[in-house]
């Protein structure tokens, strides 16, 4: 078991845990998703199959797509990510209510967090 790999998993867990349940700001949610993407990108490549050139290129949904191809996350994780991406994208038109945004985002965030927890447990089991 590599301590370095475990630290990367722990960093990803912390980034996932930092996702709040209630976002009224699409900008904050988007930024937290970017931070999460960076943490997932750093997970041990030998376990995730994420290519080296993914650095600074792929967004969260692309990374989850890679993890889905490696059978490490379900299609639900991808779908939650796409829904969140779409929600923040559309919110940029500034037509909606912040509380409606928060309510709509909440379920997708919950689903994504649950999927990520399963992923990180799987990775931990693989290296132990």
């Amino acid at each position, binding site marked *: 078991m590599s301590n370095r790999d475990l630290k990367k998993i722990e960093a990803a867990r912390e980034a996932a845990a930092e996702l709040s349940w209630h976002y009224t700001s699409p900008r904050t949610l988007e*930024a937290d998703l970017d931070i999460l993407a960076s943490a997932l990108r750093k997970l041990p490549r030998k376990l995730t199959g994420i290519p080296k050139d993914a650095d600074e290129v792929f967004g969260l949904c692309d990374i989850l797509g890679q993890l889905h191809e490696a059978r490490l996350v379900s299609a639900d994780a991808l779908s939650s990510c796409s829904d969140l991406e779409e929600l923040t994208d559309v919110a940029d038109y500034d037509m909606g209510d912040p509380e409606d945004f928060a309510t709509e985002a909440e379920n997708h965030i919950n689903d994504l967090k649950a999927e990520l927890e399963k992923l990180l447990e799987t990775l931990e089991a693989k290296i132990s």
Partner: protein
Amino acid sequence: LKQKSPNAKIERVRAAVVGAGLSWDDLWGRAEQVILFGSYASGCESAQSDIDLICVGDGQRVASKELHLLWVQSSVVNDPDWVTTEIGGHVAQYGQWLKGSCNFARAKPASPRTIARKLHKIADRAGVLGEKWTRLSKPYRASERLKLRRDIQRLAVLRTGRAVPPSPVLDSAWAKEVDKCGWVRGVLSTDLALSNLAVAIVCKYSMPSRNLWKLALSESLPRYSVQ
């Protein structure tokens, strides 16, 4: 501006809708009005431009790299105040009706609420960027910096009482601006903390100091809060 025939535009839009996995016939049948806006409507699109579409009625929204599709209730677009919002004013000025016809007033000056919402958005984006700067990826920082700069430009346009133009027009104006930092300072001159933060991000592309983003989040943001 490039001029394209209405049929060519409809074909381009149809391809983007189908590419997003939607049924064109369903969308066309369901929408009371189909309005193209943004760069494609103005003929200033580039190869990277997405298609921005508003459909009046009920349907599934889409935000992909190729297509931004919003559904808006007819009660919203028929409200006389809609043209005083940022998007309503833009659509009234630049929109092209692919189905139905424009039945609302031409663009009116933005309402104070619209201006406050824009300032709120700018303060929020700048504050969040400042707060999380060191942990954000470089591509994300660059993309948010671009959005922040365009929002400041949109604010400046809204204050003049005009409708905001499509993004390529803003980008072209920015490229020609000689004193970029001075211009940003001027637009945000009523809020020194926000102005300093925006200059750090947009012009200098440097890590904003803790003091700057904290002020933006704790003082500027609440100041522009609107219900």
